[in-house]
């Protein structure tokens, strides 16, 4: 069945063009034909009337004289007019007077009456046209002529006309067809191409193709441009969507997270591909019914989703729940579910969406971590108490060193002295000398014990920082050192020293040790020069104590601050080798550092700082 809607726009346009042209042509042709026919008919009737007049005139005398032969002859002249079918002359009484037949096979025709007052009357049928006319002579009716003509001429003309119209119609249709083809090229083709593009996009979901662009700026061009723009946007979104989808899939796949939604009213659950493995099921094995889902859960957890709906945040709808399931192999798994409850306008929950993942391993790991932590804490506590015990033992040890080691020394000294006093006169000089060496050794050991105790003491002691003017400390130390160096020529050069945050008691010990060292190793000098000042090194305040003493070889500088490390022989310079170690420990406790520069026989300089370098302090802050 012919349906306009099913036709292509190309066909429609062609049809339209052709229909319009044919309509116009047909209407015009019909008008022409009607006009032509009417005119022709009038002409025909006028010609017939003229012929009737001529025949009537020529036959008048014959009628007057009653000579039918003459009339017959006159009528015969009508042979020259082939379209005349017949002609007849009647007497006024209505009798046939003379007759002419074109085909000589006629019979007498009854004379149709002429209405009164008229000279002439004509009529026509399908096949012929007839005319009756009165013949008068001197205003007196002398007869009537009756003439008939066929319509061949008219029909011939009509046929020719119809042929011409048909030819013109066909020609114009052809022209219309050609024109529409040409128009199609500029107008329809882009639309067709657009339609084809749209079809491919719809069918193949291929958003990368574009409709061909036309040169013009008409509505179609705008349409194509808009369509292409729309395609670009769709392509962009499609790409973004696909990438997001891929990422999501990758994330879901690699993390073992499944997504689902629950239509609460319908009781239907929709699972993605990752859900079934979480429940230990084959893909597609789950019916999608909420009731079946509940049966997968451990009895105690079966209402967890219902509870989650009830407990979900009323504003955001988010919820968080856990449930346990048993796989076919009887292993128990803990599943965590998180997501959102969707509500309708009245606030009634209608749908839940969410994600699920297996947290069995995580819980196990957490449990392990908890246990490990507990073990660790226990161990730390054990170690701490062990350490505390060790510290206590150490303290007890140093205490007994302080108390018990000193006593025997005192006894040795005491009784050596008693021996000298009580039995001196009876002892030989050699024996006295031995006793002197014993006393000297015990004295040295007493110093060692005191220094070691002092070192241990520094290690144990907490720093008590306070802003301290170093000059006041130096002044106190100088008093002690001066006592011990009475009789020597020492020039003390003490510069203005800064105020620093430090533990004054400990820093005093540092100065004491450095000054005592300087005094000791300048013993061969006269005068001895000992200098204390401060300088700035890389932006840091550094204090130094410089002497012009015997110095030391820098080769051994690394040993300088070690316990019991000595640079000189005991016979030359007494000492325990603990003083600088103690000084270093105090400086380190303040976050500073201590070092020395010296040259053998040209003096030594000891530098120390009482705070960490600036940069380190800033980092800490």
């Amino acid at each position, binding site marked *: 069945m012919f349906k306009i809607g099913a036709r292509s726009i190309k066909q429609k346009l062609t049809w339209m063009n052709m229909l319009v042209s044919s309509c116009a042509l047909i209407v015009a042709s019909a008008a022409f034909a009607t006009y032509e026919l009417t005119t022709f008919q009038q002409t025909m009737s006028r010609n017939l009337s003229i012929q009737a007049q001529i025949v009537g005139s020529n036959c008048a005398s014959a009628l007057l004289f009653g000579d039918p032969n003459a009339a017959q002859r006159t009528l015969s002249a009508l042979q020259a007019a082939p379209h005349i079918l017949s002609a007849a002359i009647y007497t006024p009484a209505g009798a046939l007077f003379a007759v002419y037949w074109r085909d000589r096979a006629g019979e007498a025709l009854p004379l149709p009456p002429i209405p009164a007052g008229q000279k002439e009357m004509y009529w026509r049928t399908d096949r012929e046209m007839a005319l009756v006319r009165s013949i008068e002579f001197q205003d007196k009716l002398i007869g009537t002529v009756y003439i008939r003509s066929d319509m061949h001429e008219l029909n011939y003309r009509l046929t020719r006309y119809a042929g011409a119209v048909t030819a013109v119609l066909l020609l114009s249709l052809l022209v219309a067809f050609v024109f529409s083809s040409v128009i199609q090229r500029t107008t329809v083709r882009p639309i067709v191409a657009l339609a084809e593009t749209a079809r491919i996009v719809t069918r193949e979901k291929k958003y990368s193709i574009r409709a061909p662009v036309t040169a013009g700026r008409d509505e179609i061009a705008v349409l194509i441009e808009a369509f292409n723009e729309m395609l670009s946007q769709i392509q962009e979104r499609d790409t973004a969507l696909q990438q997001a989808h891929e990422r999501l899939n990758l994330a879901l796949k690699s993390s073992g997270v499944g997504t689902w939604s629950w239509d609460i009213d319908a009781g239907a659950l929709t699972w993605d591909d990752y859900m079934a493995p979480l429940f230990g099921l084959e893909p597609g094995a789950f019916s999608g019914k909420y009731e079946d889902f509940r049966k997968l859960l451990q009895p105690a957890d079966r209402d967890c989703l219902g509870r989650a709906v009830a407990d979900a945040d009323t504003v955001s709808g988010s919820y968080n729940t856990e449930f346990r399931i048993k796989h076919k192999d009887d292993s128990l798994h803990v599943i965590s579910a998180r997501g959102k409850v969707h509500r309708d306008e009245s606030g009634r929950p209608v749908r839940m969406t969410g994600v699920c993942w297996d947290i069995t391993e995580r819980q196990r790991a957490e449990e392990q971590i908890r246990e490990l932590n507990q073990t660790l804490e226990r161990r730390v506590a054990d170690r701490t108490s062990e350490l505390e015990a060790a510290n206590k033992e150490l303290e007890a040890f140093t205490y007994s060193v302080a108390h018990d080691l000193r*006593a*025997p020394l*005192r006894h040795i000294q005491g009784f050596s002295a008693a021996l000298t006093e009580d039995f001196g006169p009876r002892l030989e000089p050699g024996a006295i000398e031995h006793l002197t060496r014993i006393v000297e050794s015990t*004295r040295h050991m*007493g110093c060692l014990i005191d220094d070691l105790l002092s070192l241990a003491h520094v290690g144990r002691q907490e720093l008590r920082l306070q802003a301290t003017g170093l000059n006041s400390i130096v002044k106190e130390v100088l008093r002690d050192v001066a006592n011990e160096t009475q009789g020597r020529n020492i020039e003390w050069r003490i510069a203005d020293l800064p105020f620093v945050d430090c533990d004054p008691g400990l820093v005093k010990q540092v100065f004491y040790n450095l000054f005592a060292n300087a005094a000791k190793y300048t013993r061969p000098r006269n005068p001895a020069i000992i200098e204390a000042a401060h300088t700035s090194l890389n932006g840091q305040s550094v204090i130094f104590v410089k002497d012009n003493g015997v110095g030391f070889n820098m080769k051994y500088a690394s040993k300088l601050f070690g316990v019991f490390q000595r640079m000189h022989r005991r016979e030359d310079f007494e000492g325990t080798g603990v003083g600088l170690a103690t000084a270093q420990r105090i400086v380190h406790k303040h976050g500073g550092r201590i070092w020395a520069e010296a040259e053998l026989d040209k003096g030594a300089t000891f530098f120390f700082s009482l705070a960490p370098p600036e940069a380190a302090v800033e980092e800490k802050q």
Partner: protein
Amino acid sequence: MTDDAIEILLVEDDPQDVQLTLRALQGENLGNRIEIARDGEEALDFLFRRGPHANRSNGNHVKLVLLDLKLPKVDGLQVLREIKSSPECRSIPVVVLTSSGEQRDIVESYKLGVNSYIQKPVDIAQFRQTIKSLGLYWMVVNRQPC
């Protein structure tokens, strides 16, 4: 020698130290009226007339207690605490005479009300000098209630 004549109580467990201390005190003629306690318990028994000293006659003439800190049974700080918390004995001057120079011992002793704290010098000459000075000071210079 009667109990009443005792003027100095030397609490010292180390016999060597006892010897050296006595020697130093005798050098100053202070060695005759000395009682020696070898541990804290003995010292307290003597001062508070308990145990073997329960029958000591009334009247307390002890003018000085020389107290070591590291003692068997009851340690020196405990002895000091009991002396200084007893109304009867708290006025007796107590001088701690010990090898320890530990701060916590010094601090604790003064907290308990020690009258003087002396670290025994290793050097015998210094030791003698110290004993001599403190004997003279507490026994001769210092005045105390009778």
